């Protein structure tokens, strides 16, 4: 059979409905299916799954005990009470947990770029950044989310408004964590494998989000709000959960939106410089 015959005889029909209405519903279905598969993949190794998530909860509880001992001796720390510090830990661990559970590749983007693993995502018709982010789930981070919910259940305001405010605080923290990570990882497009540097910068952010903002003065505070955006997470227990401080809340939301925009822009700019690679890769 000649090429012409084949072309004529084969009646091509498309079975995709990507150009039909309902795009958002289908996008959501894709995201939900990815998360389900991530969880299913994590649960393939049942004991490891339970141990890893459990160990992370214990790890966080150690810090809670430490702060409990401190506040047992000193009732207030520059205006922060035990309840505020507990909520600080709940917001920080919860935000990080949401990032690593649902957008688990955020901290691995530099490695993915440097080892040419973006090829599979680029060959498929989904927003590349979203697809990369949701394609991995950190099992230990599930422990962080459970820990955050547990701390909130013990120390948090369980009224409808309290739950909504806590949800918003976790969402702001998660967005800042995700897109700060995206930005520092995207450096790999320009300066090669920056995995180590990205981890260090992200850990700096994470560490500072677990200390009350009131212990930092002048320059320290400036760095906390202007250089690394940790202040917009660590002040949430005071500026949102204890009482809504409107200028701070607007600032935190604006910073989150700015990080989303910069992270997305940087990633797609960087894609033009992507050089791929020949490493053998499997999706895990």
């Amino acid at each position, binding site marked *: 059979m000649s090429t012409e015959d084949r072309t004529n005889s084969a009646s091509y029909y498309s079975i995709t409905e990507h150009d039909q209405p309902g795009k958002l519903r289908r996008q959501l279905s894709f995201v939900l299916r990815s998360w389900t598969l991530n969880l299913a993949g994590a649960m393939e190794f049942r004991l490891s799954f339970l141990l890893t998530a459990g160990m992370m909860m214990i790890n966080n509880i150690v810090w809670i005990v430490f702060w409990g001992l401190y506040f047992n001796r000193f009732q207030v720390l520059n205006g922060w009470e035990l309840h505020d510090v507990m909520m600080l830990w709940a917001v920080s661990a919860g935000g990080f947990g949401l990032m690593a559970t649902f957008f688990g590749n955020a901290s691995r983007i530099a490695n993915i770029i440097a080892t040419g693993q973006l090829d599979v995502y680029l060959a498929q018709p989904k927003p590349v950044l979203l697809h990369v982010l949701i394609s991995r789930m950190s099992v230990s981070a599930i422990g962080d989310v459970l820990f955050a919910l547990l701390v909130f259940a013990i120390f948090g305001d369980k009224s409808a408004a309290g739950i909504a405010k806590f949800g918003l605080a976790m969402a702001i923290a998660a967005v800042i964590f995700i897109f700060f990570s995206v930005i520092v990882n995207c450096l790999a497009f320009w300066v090669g494998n920056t995995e180590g540097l990205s981890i260090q910068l992200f850990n700096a952010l994470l560490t500072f989000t677990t200390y009350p903002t009131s212990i930092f003065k002048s320059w320290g505070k400036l760095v906390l709000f202007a250089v690394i955006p940790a202040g917009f997470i660590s002040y949430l227990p005071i500026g949102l959960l204890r009482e809504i401080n409107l200028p701070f809340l607007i600032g935190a939301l604006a910073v989150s939106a700015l990080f989303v925009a910069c992270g997305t822009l940087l990633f797609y700019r960087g894609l033009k410089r992507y050089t791929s690679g*020949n490493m053998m890769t499997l999706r895990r």
Partner: protein
Amino acid sequence: MSSIRVEQLGKAFRIKKKQEGFAGSFKSLLKPLYEDKTAVDGITFSARQGETVAFLGPNGAGKSTTIKMLTGILHPTIGFAEVLGCCPWTERTKLSYRIGSVFGQKSQLWYHLPPIDTFELMSRIYELRRSDYLQRRDEMIERFELAPYMNTPVRKLSLGERMRCEIAASLLHRPQVLFLDEPTIGLDVVVKQRIRRLIHELNEQEGTTVFLTSHDAGDIEQLCERAIVINYGRIVFDDRVELMKLRYMTHKTIRLVVADDPGDMDIPGATVVERSETKVVLSVDTSLTTIEAALTNVMSSRRIIDVTIEDPPMEEIITRMYGDFGEEDCSS
């Protein structure tokens, strides 16, 4: 109608050069040296819908880089390309609904999950109509004989089983063009045969354009009607596979069965490849002598019982072709 059109497409990479050892690494840290390497150097070709094209060349010739540009993974440095009327790197999303790609070294299957789960995710990625997806999935499972593996985690599958699942997954959305980058790498002969048959059937029945890179002679001989050969980023041959065989087939093999022990044979333009008591295999360089002259030479001193004249296998042609490129480069 052209399904792939490429004009003066080129890609250069900036590569860091480092001297040997720790001292070299330290020097490179303080004063890095870079070199521009042209992977693809202004290539031009086109392929019609339904055509099966083998894209050949030695390692580092620019094959994978070209495929990555045609699928929108890499942005070119210069030139233009169009696949199914779309520019791959600016209309990547739109195009990827209509093309399929299989990279032999990069899996799109989820390692810890069974293929059925990846297939399900693929249906969401390509936004397939549910009823059409189920029908297509069952058709792929039947055609690729995947039923026994569909519920086994990918990490437990053999390479051949995984590759069949990989190709089936990339065909779920009925692509019009299929890009295959070394799809049979590391597979055994039986599995290779089966995969070739399946791709061939797909091309025959659905009119899918197949664009394939491979080092395997069987892939080219059994699957492709046209070959494009690339070396150092430039196209050095673009014609039918049959013509490629003729151009690079400078040797023919003569198998002889003789009545008595043939003894030492000295035939100008021919070399003895194999010899036993009554059997001789000769490789005749047709640029130096003719088959007739070689046979006449043998018959002058020996009685021939049987004779077979064969073309060399495709494997040998490719080896010779890549060898010629090396010599050309050395002489230039």
